[in-house]
């Protein structure tokens, strides 16, 4: 063993070491408690505030007579308070198991759903604040509500909250115009920092366009939290303010009428063996620019999106077989307008002296333009020249080819002479709104601009694509199995490669009858025809009419603006309108169906049968009425109604009977009119002040307002917890 003296020294050394530790600690303690000139202080409140957002009920959307199109309904939402569950001896396992059984899910999934998300907790997890009660089931069935509320002792930490949800009382009525709602996502929050996860946001249609008006102001409930984030009481609460009510110019009765007629026409056309894949109807007031109805088929129920659409429902809606029910064909669709375009062609030709209202012109069965033979529909022909009135009435195509081709060659001469081409037809189309979004009060992505071809765009497109055309022509589509198709495609690519830039006489002739690259939406056609009865004004139309706040006060009136004015003389309009009056009977295409209608003399219309490559014809009919003449003899109409059925045949066979049912309903044939006097509502409806919808959690009076940073005693939690769940 070691030397005792050495051991003694070693023990002394350890003693000194220990003593130095003691002195160090005492010195540091003295410094920290008494000497330190910069003592740290608590900056966080001893009880700090956490905010629970109380989403505001969305504003209602009502029709022109104040009838609800979207209203609010209260729903029961089942919430789970994770903190309360964890305080239980079994950490809530039993409660979650019972709840899972009730809701038809598993306790494990519920446990995941109520766990706050973090880098180590992946989805499914709770994205809200840890202290907020987590909604685990929305729109709970009554049986579950009863079970939970009658056996409260079996469900500690589980609460039922009443929330308001948008409700579409008439199901799919005006679905495309109203649009659907969705939950707020990260992109929305980045765009608008005032949004919270609890909010509902309009995704499409009026819900999206007027979202800021409809959303209201979220309320809040302040929760008092201890430094661990546990709820110890409730602070101030601010009631949510419901969004304002949007009054639309939609007339629910008219909307119902056109939707029923559209759906029936689809069924009828299909019964006749036509595909009739889709269709739409637009009803507007040409004098105000307001839209009374806009229907699109196929349609959907926006209620499916309330509270989040299920994956299954979404898959059904977006399946190819569903044929895009979410698409608003009345406003966003772009179709070849066919002969309905002759309004524009006539306007241009007469205004620029290519046709005369008094002259007669040939209407042969076919005509060769630019080396290609173009025929009339069914090759019908008139031996003698006919008047413009008859050309419009019988819808003779060859009649309009001639001025279009002549204009083309005149322009070619100007181009050869170094001048800019006139392109009157194109300019007139642009004045009527073709090629530009109509500017209706819907999201920009939901309005079709339509299109037409001219020299400039043709050249630009060729410049952008010629490399591809020429490469395709060289390669010759080796992947195409059908030799005929391969040869056709190769030929086309070859022509495009060399001549794709060229705008031809045939192109101009195609445009004259609403074919070729000419497309318009049903709404655009309605706008163009409206111009006939209001002195050439092309409206920037509206669906919204006014915004009414909770007290019933009108806070905003929405008025259509004039987007452009067509430079066409009123007598030309009168001439066209009179030429197409159904009072002329057989002389007007499409009037046949109305021969026996009591109102036949009060309306007029133009059919269209648009050929679509690879498809059956698109059936069009644009109508107007009831017609009147003012003191100067100018033709006036109260409504313009445009109908379209895709792949359904001629205008007279599908769109004709479809709109006849609409006019029957408007005029009240065999039953009371849905729109007495066919007069759209002239003044905003008077809305009674809303009964304010308050949403849970109810404001708690017990906890007084706190200012952050002020130390305050902790309120016992039990009462606070139940308070939060009330």
């Amino acid at each position, binding site marked *: 063993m*070691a030397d005792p003296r050495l051991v003694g020294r*070693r023990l002394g050394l350890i003693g000194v070491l220990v003593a130095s530790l003691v002195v160090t600690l005492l010195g540091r*303690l003295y410094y920290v408690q*008494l000497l330190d000139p910069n003592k740290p202080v*608590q900056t966080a409140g001893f009880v700090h505030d956490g905010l629970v957002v109380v989403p505001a009920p969305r504003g209602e959307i009502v029709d022109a007579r104040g009838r609800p199109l979207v209203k609010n309904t209260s729903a029961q939402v089942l919430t789970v308070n994770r903190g309360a569950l964890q305080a239980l001896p079994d950490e809530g396992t039993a409660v979650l198991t019972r709840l899972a059984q009730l809701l038809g899910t598993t306790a494990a999934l519920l446990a995941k759903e109520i766990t706050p998300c973090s880098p180590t907790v992946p989805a499914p997890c709770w994205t809200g604040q840890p202290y907020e009660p987590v909604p685990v089931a929305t729109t709970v069935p009554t049986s579950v509500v009863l079970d939970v509320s009658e056996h409260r002792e079996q469900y500690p930490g589980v609460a039922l909250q009443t929330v308001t949800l948008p409700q579409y009382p008439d199901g799919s009525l005006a679905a495309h115009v109203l649009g659907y709602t969705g939950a707020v996502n990260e992109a929305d929050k980045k765009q608008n920092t005032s949004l919270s996860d609890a909010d509902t946001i309009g995704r499409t249609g009026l819900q999206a366009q007027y979202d800021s008006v409809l959303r209201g102001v979220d309320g809040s409930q302040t929760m008092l939290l201890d430094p*661990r984030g546990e709820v110890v009481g409730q602070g101030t609460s601010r009631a949510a303010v419901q969004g304002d009510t949007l009054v639309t110019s939609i007339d629910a009765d008219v909307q119902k009428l056109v939707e029923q007629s559209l759906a029936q026409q689809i069924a009828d056309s299909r019964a006749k063996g036509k595909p009739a894949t889709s269709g739409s109807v637009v009803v507007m007031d040409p004098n105000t620019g307001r839209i009374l109805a806009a229907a699109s088929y196929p349609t959907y129920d926006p209620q499916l999106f309330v509270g989040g659409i299920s994956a299954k429902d979404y898959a059904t809606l977006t399946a190819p077989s569903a044929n895009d029910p979410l698409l608003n064909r009345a406003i966003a669709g772009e179709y070849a307008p066919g002969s309905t375009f002759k309004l524009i062609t006539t306007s241009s030709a007469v205004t620029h002296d290519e046709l005369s209202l008094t002259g007669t012109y040939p209407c042969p069965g076919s005509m060769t333009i630019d080396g290609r033979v173009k025929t009339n529909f069914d090759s019908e022909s008139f031996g003698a020249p006919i008047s413009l009135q008859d050309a419009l009435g019988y819808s003779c195509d060859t009649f309009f080819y001639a001025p279009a081709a002549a204009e083309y060659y005149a322009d070619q001469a100007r181009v050869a002479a170094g001048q800019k081409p006139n392109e009157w037809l194109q300019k007139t189309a642009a004045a009527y709104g073709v090629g530009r979004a109509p500017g209706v009060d819907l999201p920009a992505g939901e309005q079709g601009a339509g299109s037409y071809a001219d020299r400039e765009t043709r050249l630009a497109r060729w410049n952008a694509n010629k490399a591809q055309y020429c490469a395709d022509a060289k390669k010759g589509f080796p992947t195409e199995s059908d030799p005929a198709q391969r040869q056709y495609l190769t030929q086309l690519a070859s022509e495009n490669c060399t001549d794709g830039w060229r705008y031809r006489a045939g192109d101009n002739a195609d445009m004259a009858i609403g074919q070729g690259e000419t497309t318009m939406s049903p709404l655009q056609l309605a706008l163009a025809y409206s111009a006939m009865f209001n002195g050439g004004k092309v409206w920037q139309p509206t669906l919204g009419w006014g915004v009414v706040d909770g007290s019933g006060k009108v806070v905003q009136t929405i008025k259509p603006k004039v987007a452009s004015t067509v430079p066409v003389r009123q007598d030309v309009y009168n001439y066209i309108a009179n030429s197409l009056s159904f009072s002329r009977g057989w002389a007007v295409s499409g009037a046949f169906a109305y021969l026996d209608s009591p109102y036949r003399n009060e309306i007029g219309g133009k059919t269209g049968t648009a050929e679509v490559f690879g498809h059956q014809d698109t059936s069009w009919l644009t109508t107007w009425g009831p017609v009147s003449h003012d003191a100067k003899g100018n033709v006036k109409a109260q409504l313009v109604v445009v109908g379209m059925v895709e792949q359904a045949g001629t205008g007279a066979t599908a769109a004709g009977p479809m709109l006849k049912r609409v006019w029957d309903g408007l005029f009240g044939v065999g039953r009371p009119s849905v729109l007495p006097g066919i007069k759209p509502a002239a003044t905003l409806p008077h809305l009674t002040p809303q009964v304010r919808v308050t949403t849970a959690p109810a404001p708690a009076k017990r906890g007084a307002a706190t200012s952050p940073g002020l130390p305050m005693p902790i309120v016992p939690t039990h009462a606070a917890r139940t308070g939060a769940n009330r």
Partner: protein
Amino acid sequence: MTLLAARPSARDPKAPFALTPEVLPLDRRAPGYDRMLAGAALALALIGALLVWAATRDVARANGQNPQGFLYRHLLNLVIASALFVAAARTDARLLRLFGPFVYLASLAGLLAVFVVGSTVNGAHAWIRLGGGFELQPSEFMKLGMIVGMAVLFAQRGADREEQLPPPTSDVLLAIGLVTVPLVLVMLQPDLGSAMVLASAAFGVLVAAGVQARWTVGLLLAAVLVAIIAVKVGVLADYQLARFSSFTRPGHDVQGTAYNVTQAHIAIANGGLFGRGLFNGPQTNGGFVPEQQTDFVYSVAGEEFGLVGGAVIIALFAVLCWRGLRIARSADPAGRLVAVGVVCWLAFQAFQNIGMNLGLTPVTGLPLPFVSYGGSSMFAQGLAIGLLQAVHRRSAS
């Protein structure tokens, strides 16, 4: 026994009463016990009871739990630890050589069991759940086991030699081997704090065993080198490094790892000379300091009892160490090494714990001996103090 029986007869039969009691009351109840040592430990444990109570009552109440729950369990731990203390104190210290190796091997087995059936608390896989809410932390017992094992090793091999020479290289290497096995296991859990305690206790035993200075200095340098390499290579877990970096830059990342340190610092700094008074510390009542009933229990003392209370605790540890070293001086070789080992263990652990509360040392997750809430450490320390008593009784007789 013979003395007690004889004394009454020595009393003057005519005197109405004895002027001086022959036997002091404590002497009678605990012959040969170092009362100051036991008293200091008991005082620390009772102060600990108050501090644990203060640290937990408001938070427990806010969570709907029994506000006195932690107090009761702390007192229960104290009762069990006292029983262990008495059992250890009553053993004959000469038996150390006999059961020493078993103590060492048993605690090593416990440490290994952690890797098989252990559970993870605060990042360290260091606990064995016993069921019924009881948990055991074998590394606490390993501290005592290692000290006893080393003491027996040196004493046994030293007794076989006649000359008064420092322990030979073979003994030192064996001892280092004894230390290395538990050290590595504890590092693997990973429990850096316990590893540092083990190392410092072992270092104290080596010094007291009289090993040559080149060994002690060499080992110190090696430890520093290992620490540097560990940080560079990344042997330490992220949370351990984070604690160290929050120590070097306390203002940084207040809500993260430095949060504990900052909050404890706020609590102590605002205690002042006499403190806010029991149950009146806003930091403590607000639950700002995480782990306050265990690793940061000293911050309760600093806030509610102030400089005076904080100094009393340090002073009680000083008394503990003084008595321990005093026992070491008069003990036989094995008892001396046990005493020194226990003193170094408690001194280093207390310094490390109080130091991290005062922002002096990095946060390593060590309880304050006797004071912190926690059964395993309390039991192991009860055994250790009991063992010192046994050593003391042996040398006093």
